[in-house]
């Protein structure tokens, strides 16, 4: 039996490098059993400026002990995971079917329209009710999930998706080729999210169980897109509906009350029901807006877990024997400031570089993140196989001062406005950042915008600098549209740079890790030179899943349909609810 009251720390990593380091890459991209080698998770592409939550994680060494319970960045050279005693305990336990839990949600859901922008709260609920076309292996490579096979042609300009026979939606309708085509087409046609399938030219039904997706240009990492929102299949009659979600996953929506939460119950027709999955009878998702309320609720046993968006719970509960903490250490979003490179003063590269030189990221991480995060110098974590040190300007106040002096002599004083959503913690963080800038003569002021207005404001280019949380895709291709000049309005900083474009294209079109690495090095070089964003940190480590010890299966690898271990998913969005179980 697991010893109750023991703090378990499972640090779970998930960056692309992580995947690549272990998957070693298959040279044969044409078979389902041996998918193209690249390691990543898809990014659903939806901007999420107020929720640093879109990460997944992997855990290659579940039995290793944590170094200690100190709040330090948890990662290792091999991109694998260190794990606590709880993992070993769990491994010795036989899962038990039955029971229901209440899971706290930090964000309220706003609906389930798979062709629209979906709120983080909704995504957490959806994750229990759907099984995307593509799953992620423990090595963070892709593998067929709901689909039976996903096969490219030789040059990755066409992919054939074949479904498993006898799959049913929650409403009893068959999951066939036509329903998959309808879902993908609706997603592609959506003005809100369709950009994520930019290269897709056509989607046609091949036979009863298959569809062919034709691309305008090679897209070797396309399957990763199908691990996210694009890969959620819903009953055709409900495509585009917001108030219900009829999909294929282990749980079915029983009730959703906006502002309160949702209740999902076991799907008796789940295609893995013969494996005894899912274990739980039901999950109540309860919207708990206040951090203190969440803590009291888990301490009293009124909820069995939640995802904490800050370092406070991690630091406090690591030493609490009654609460388990599961930390995702890579693949999390980044905190950064977007700089609009088309308006003064950020249309001058000297100002952008001066800001980077003036900002002491280590100090900020120590003061605001309890040293749990890692400094960022781009959208790729340094633990990723795709990372290269491209020479992003480091903390050097003298260099910053020199650039500022040069600029001011030519143009005049440097002043700017930082747009920011009304979040007291982020505002405080930004004020300290501004003090660094003020030290070298860059004067910033804060402009508060409405909650949830970040993306719209950025799209309209109605900003100079912008406080931002985003990216977090371990595979660089997941953020293609946000940096490539073809991204249009989603190229937030409006930077057009040949190194960035060529590098991203090279990475997208090849499945050869060496070629991809070369492409992404070029892309990072462009970003480091041009500094269209002021990078602060990768938020790995601060977003933790907090659970009661009796809840098992979160943060540890599950099992894919073929019996191989799956990526343990520890961000709020991607728990493998299928294999979560409760000690009775």
């Amino acid at each position, binding site marked *: 039996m697991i010893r109750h009251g023991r703090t378990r720390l499972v640090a779970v990593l998930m960056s692309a490098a992580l995947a690549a380091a272990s998957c070693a890459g298959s040279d044969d991209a044409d078979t389902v059993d041996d998918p193209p080698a690249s390691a990543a998770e898809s990014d659903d592409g939806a901007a999420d400026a107020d929720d640093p939550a879109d990460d997944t994680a992997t855990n290659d060494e579940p039995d290793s002990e944590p170094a200690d319970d100190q709040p330090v960045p948890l990662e290792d050279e091999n991109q694998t995971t260190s794990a606590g005693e709880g993992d070993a305990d769990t491994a010795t336990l036989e899962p038990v079917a039955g029971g229901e839990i209440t899971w706290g949600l930090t964000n309220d859901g706003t*609906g389930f329209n798979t062709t629209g922008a979906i709120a983080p709260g909704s995504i957490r609920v959806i994750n229990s009710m759907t099984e995307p076309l593509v799953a992620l292996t423990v090595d963070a490579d892709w593998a067929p999930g709901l689909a039976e096979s996903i096969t490219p042609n030789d040059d990755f300009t066409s992919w054939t998706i074949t479904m498993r026979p006898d799959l049913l939606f929650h409403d009893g309708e068959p999951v066939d080729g036509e329903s998959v085509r309808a879902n993908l087409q609706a997603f592609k046609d959506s*003005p*809100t999210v369709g950009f994520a399938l930019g290269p897709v030219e056509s989607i046609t039904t091949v036979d009863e169980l298959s569809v062919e997706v034709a691309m305008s240009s090679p897209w070797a990492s396309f399957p990763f897109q199908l691990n996210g929102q694009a890969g959620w299949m819903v009953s055709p009659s409900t495509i585009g509906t917001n108030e219900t979600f009829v999909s294929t996953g282990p749980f079915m929506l029983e009730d959703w009350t906006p*502002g309160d939460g949702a209740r999902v119950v076991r799907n008796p027709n789940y295609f893995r029901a013969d494996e005894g999955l899912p274990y739980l009878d039901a999950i109540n998702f309860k919207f*708990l807006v206040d951090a203190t309320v969440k803590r009291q609720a888990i301490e*009293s046993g009124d909820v069995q877990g939640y995802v904490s968006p800050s370092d406070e719970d991690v630091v406090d509960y690591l030493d609490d024997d009654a609460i388990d903490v599961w930390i995702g250490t890579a693949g999390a979003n980044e905190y950064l400031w977007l700089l609009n490179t088309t308006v003064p003063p950020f249309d001058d590269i000297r100002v952008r570089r001066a800001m980077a030189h003036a900002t002491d990221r280590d100090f900020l991480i120590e003061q605001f993140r309890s040293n749990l995060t890692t400094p960022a110098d781009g959208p790729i974590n340094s633990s990723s196989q795709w990372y290269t040190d491209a020479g992003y300007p480091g903390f050097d106040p003298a260099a910053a001062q020199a650039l500022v002096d040069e600029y001011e002599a030519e143009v005049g004083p440097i002043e700017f406005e930082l747009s920011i959503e009304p979040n007291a913690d982020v505002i405080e963080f930004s004020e300290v950042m501004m003090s660094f800038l003020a030290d070298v003569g860059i004067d910033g002021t804060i402009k508060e915008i409405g*909650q949830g207005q970040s993306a719209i404001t950025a799209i309209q280019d109605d900003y100079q600098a912008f406080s931002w949380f985003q990216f977090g895709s371990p595979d660089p291709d997941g953020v293609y549209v946000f940096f490539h000049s073809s991204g249009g309005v989603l190229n937030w900083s409006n930077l057009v740079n040949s190194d960035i474009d060529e590098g991203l294209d090279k990475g997208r079109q090849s499945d050869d890790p060496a070629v991809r690495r070369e492409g992404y090095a070029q892309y990072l070089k462009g970003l480091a030179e041009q500094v269209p964003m002021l990078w602060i940190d990768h938020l790995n480590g601060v977003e933790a899943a907090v659970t009661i010890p009796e809840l098992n299966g979160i943060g540890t690898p599950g099992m894919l349909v073929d019996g191989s271990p799956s990526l343990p998913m520890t961000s709020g969005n991607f728990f493998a609810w299928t294999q979560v179980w409760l000690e009775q």
Partner: protein
Amino acid sequence: MIVVARRLARLVFVFFVVTFVTFFLLDRAPGDPAERLAGLNATPEVIEGLREELGLNGSLFERYSRWLGNAVTFDFGDSIVTRGFSSWDLIRESLPKTLELMILAEIMAIGIAVPLALASARRPGGLIDKVSSSTAFGLLALPSFVLGIYMSYLFGVRLGWFPTIVDNLPGLNDDPLENLRQMFLPSLTLALNLVGVYLRLLRSDIIETLQQDYVMLAQARGLSERRIMWRHVLRPSSLNFTTAAGLNVAGLIGGAFIIEVLFAINGMGRLVIQSVVLEDFNVVAAVVAILTVAYVLVNFAVDLLYSILDPRIRHGAR
């Protein structure tokens, strides 16, 4: 009858003023609901279509008139954020919980304050009076969000007697015990803030009433103290208390908003807070309209209650 008509006219006037001001303020708030709903990458045509669909085009007065015309039939428009739900759907879900919370809080507050006030007034300066007065001042000084956290910690986390959150609340008809178990802590938290006010008001009024000649006459006639206090003292001492209770409805609504967040109750407070944060203006306008009507109606009822409590008011009008 004339009084009732006047009150109703005042209600209509207040309703117009409050809803229009709310509408005006929401109109001036930053952000465009249509753009927000359209999401990223939306074309101007899509946004314009949504604006038309949501009734966001036209002048402020046109939109207000349109909204008002629909509101009288409880059609407050669709929620812009949770598509597929009307504003009234969301209110219908949350209103009963807020009403129950407020009613339970009032019952608890009165249930605690009245006996304590009577006991305190009987022996001013006595032990009960001193303790209850000190407690009352303490409760008055303690904000409900602090009190709520402590109550939740003590009775929920430490003692485990009551849940710290309200979850899957059954209807009072379906499972009254479970309903009351879940609503006990939030109601008590809300009530305790009222107890201080009610206790202080009632105590001083009862002490004053006890000096009246008819009370002394009753005592001289040998009526029991209990009978005198409950039958002859409490009622005439309740005018200020009743006024406070009526006026407190607004405070109670505000307090309920905080309590709903602290105990995760899906009530009107949380609904309006979320709607403001997410700029779901149709819902905000609807909630404000309903709360305005409710507030004015409650105070209207309090006015009517005066004449029942004190016959001098009823007869004095003649």
